[in-house]
């Protein structure tokens, strides 16, 4: 059987019998989870990509229909487990929109703070794993990875102090947030931010002064502006291709209009441009966090009292879609409510899923080594792709 | 208990014969190529043996140049095989009875 398949693969190509079909994933060191790309190779050059997803499918949308508005936010964080805060935010924002529920100013600010810290943490992991993809677990990549994980740990410690959890928080709830800041926490946040701010300078010095890093990233995996718009990618990817689009700016939510920040845009569209965008986002996020801390208003953290029963929140019949800017791009949640304690239908728009669809367009013609570099620069999280 | 020169020459003869038989028997041009290398090396061995017997560096110098020639030959020969393969997609010397393609 294997032989027959091999022959099929060989005869598949146009005239040549020099093609090799190879699985890259699901169990691959740089599959970023469980992604399977069936690459067709001519020597080292990729001539065909077939993506297989769904290895991490957990029926999130069905779960959303069977869990109540009170229960689901902590499950929502499991879609994008690297940046759980923004996933929760997307869900509760959708519920609040459909149910026309007010959110106190302090809660909005805390949500922004959590989202931006989460973006920093997520970008730390991205930078580390991306360098790991290019530099190897037994090389310079591992060094950057460990440095980045160190920084991410700092942010996770803050989250732990805030919510008691390090990865999946359940921080958001309909109508506000669940926990107020503990004593002395804001000071810790400031210190961590200062540290990360200085470390980002170090990373830039380490990577941008490194000729090998530059040749691996510049001009690799270029996404043109038109292609980016056509495929519908979002987040740092589309901003790396010269499109100035950021949900925080285009459609401000959760009081983002109160803060002064820049939306970084690069025009080259290659891996390096995406890297630059994310590095600037580090700085912008830090800036936003400081503004939040400076202007954090007093007041309640939720417009609804604490949780007494799981069926406590009921939303009137209606439907609505909200989107937030996650670390990877636009995360959307669409809810159809039927008046009960659970939504009738929940639909997720995962940023990684849409971003991943760019791969077939830019992988063809690259080398095997570029495949992992490009995959890393897209920064997919498979919890969010497969849901 | 030194080894007599004749032993080296005998070995050289055996290897040479095997190389020639390989050239005739096999159909894969690559193997034929390797067989030619084999025969070439057998001849080199004989040259070095004679050089040692005469006590002059001439034998070794000759082998030295043969190596250079062999390198050039391997390069060009393989390139020719590449060209043939590209135009025929077959790998049997029996198909190559014509001096053109």
């Amino acid at each position, binding site marked *: 059987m294997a032989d027959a398949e091999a022959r099929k693969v060989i005869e598949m190509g146009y005239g040549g019998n020099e093609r090799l079909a190879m699985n890259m994933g699901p169990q691959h060191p740089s599959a970023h989870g469980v992604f399977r790309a069936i690459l067709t190779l001519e020597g080292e050059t990729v001539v065909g990509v077939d993506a297989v997803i769904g290895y991490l499918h957990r029926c999130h949308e069905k779960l959303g229909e069977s869990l109540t508005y009170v229960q689901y936010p902590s499950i929502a964080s499991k879609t994008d487990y690297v940046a759980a805060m923004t996933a929760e935010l997307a869900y509760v924002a959708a519920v609040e929109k459909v149910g026309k529920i007010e959110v106190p100013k302090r809660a909005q600010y805390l949500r922004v703070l959590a989202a931006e810290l989460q973006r920093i943490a997520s970008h730390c992991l991205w930078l580390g794993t991306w360098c790991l993809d290019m530099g190897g677990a037994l090389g310079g990549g591992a060094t950057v990875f460990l440095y980045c994980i160190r920084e991410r740990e700092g942010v996770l410690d803050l989250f732990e102090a805030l919510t008691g959890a390090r990865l999946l928080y359940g921080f958001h709830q309909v109508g506000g947030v669940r926990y107020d800041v503990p004593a002395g926490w804001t000071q810790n946040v400031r210190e961590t931010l200062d540290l990360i701010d200085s470390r980002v300078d170090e990373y830039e010095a380490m990577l941008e002064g490194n000729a090998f890093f530059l040749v691996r990233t510049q001009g690799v995996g270029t996404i043109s502006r038109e292609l980016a718009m056509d495929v519908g990618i979002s987040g740092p990817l589309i901003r790396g291709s010269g499109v100035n689009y950021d949900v925080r700016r285009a459609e401000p939510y959760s009081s983002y209009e109160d803060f002064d920040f820049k939306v970084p845009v690069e025009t080259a569209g290659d891996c390096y441009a995406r890297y630059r965008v994310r590095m600037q986002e580090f700085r912008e996020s830090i800036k936003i966090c400081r503004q939040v801390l400076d202007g954090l208003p007093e007041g309640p953290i939720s417009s609804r009292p604490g949780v007494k029963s799981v069926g406590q929140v009921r939303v009137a019949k209606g439907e609505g879609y909200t989107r937030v800017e996650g670390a990877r791009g636009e995360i959307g949640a669409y809810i159809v409510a039927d008046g009960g304690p659970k939504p009738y239908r929940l639909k997720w728009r995962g940023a990684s899923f849409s971003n991943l669809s760019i791969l077939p367009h830019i992988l063809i013609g690259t080398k095997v*080594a570029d495949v992992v570099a490009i995959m890393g620069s897209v920064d997919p999280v498979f919890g969010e792709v497969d849901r | 208990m030194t080894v007599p020169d004749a032993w080296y020459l005998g070995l050289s003869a055996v290897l040479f014969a095997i190389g020639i038989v390989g050239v005739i028997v096999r159909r894969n041009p690559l193997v034929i190529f390797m067989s030619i290398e084999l025969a070439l090396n057998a001849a080199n061995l004989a040259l070095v043996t004679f050089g040692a017997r005469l006590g002059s560096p001439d034998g070794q110098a000759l082998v030295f140049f043969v190596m250079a020639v062999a390198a050039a030959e391997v390069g060009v020969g393989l390139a020719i095989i590449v060209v043939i393969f590209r135009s025929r997609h077959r790998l049997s010397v029996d198909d190559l009875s014509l001096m053109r393609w």
Partner: protein
Amino acid sequence: MTLPPIAQTAVAAFVLLNVVIGLVTYVTLLERKFAARMQSRIGPYYVGPHGLLQPIADALKLMMKEDVVPSSADRWVYNLAPIAFLVPCVLIFATLPFAPGLGLADLNIGVLFFLAVSSLEIVGLFMGGWGSNNKYAMLSAMRGVNQIISYDLPFVFAALVPVVLAGSLQLSAIVTAQQGLWFAAYPVIGQLGFIAYLVATLAAENRVPFDILEAESELVAGFRVEYSGMKFALIQLGEYAHIIATSYLGALLFLGGWLGPGPAWLGAGWFTLKAMLVFLLLTWVRWSFVRIRVDQILAISWKLMLPATVLLLLVTAFWVAWRSGGGA
């Protein structure tokens, strides 16, 4: 009670083999500790005081591991590959003199022997990659052949610079020639030669940034992806032996080998110190760079390293020839 010469040689060879194996096991620990420091970690710590027994634990673990031979592999080629890989890698130690007279065989074509035997490593590597019938291993082997042949030449030419300066291929003679001044200290020529040697070494030993053979984020582990247990250990051993031997050669060719202050018996210590310095230099590079792509690696070799080293060699030769009498 003196032993017959052949028995003496056998004892010496046995001792050398054990020294090499001991060196390799502990140099891996050194590298891990060094890398850990670079990455603000501690490194192996729990097995023995400060993790000193870690290499032994690793070796035992590898011995106890099940040996999985893929059913579709070419069994003969697959099983012989670790040995074919190990032998040239360790054999190059045979010609290294650790101190005056303290070496197995100070051949009068020492450098050439070293270069020739170390280039045979590719055979074992290729056998492993091809014999596994694994696509990653296969791609790795193809990359390996290309990369190693590409960097063999700059490596040879860079290593010939000290040979031209010393006028001998014998390793001990090269050290003696550095009595006045280490070759690395020769203005311009020495430094460029040393740098070229280091770069070519990185590539020839498949270290990051040139470790496209192993490339675990693309090719998982390259040509040894299907190896496990002791066979994997032998390949690893060979690889590290090769790196260490090349470090020793670098220290010998450019840094004056065993020359150093203090009594003569310190020579071996000085030599090892210098070799470890070279090794740590390579390790430092390894843990700070990302890996580059195949085509870029080859372009660097053919467009830059090859002409540069040949020119360097010619310049060195001109200087030596001019100084030695200005022509006959």
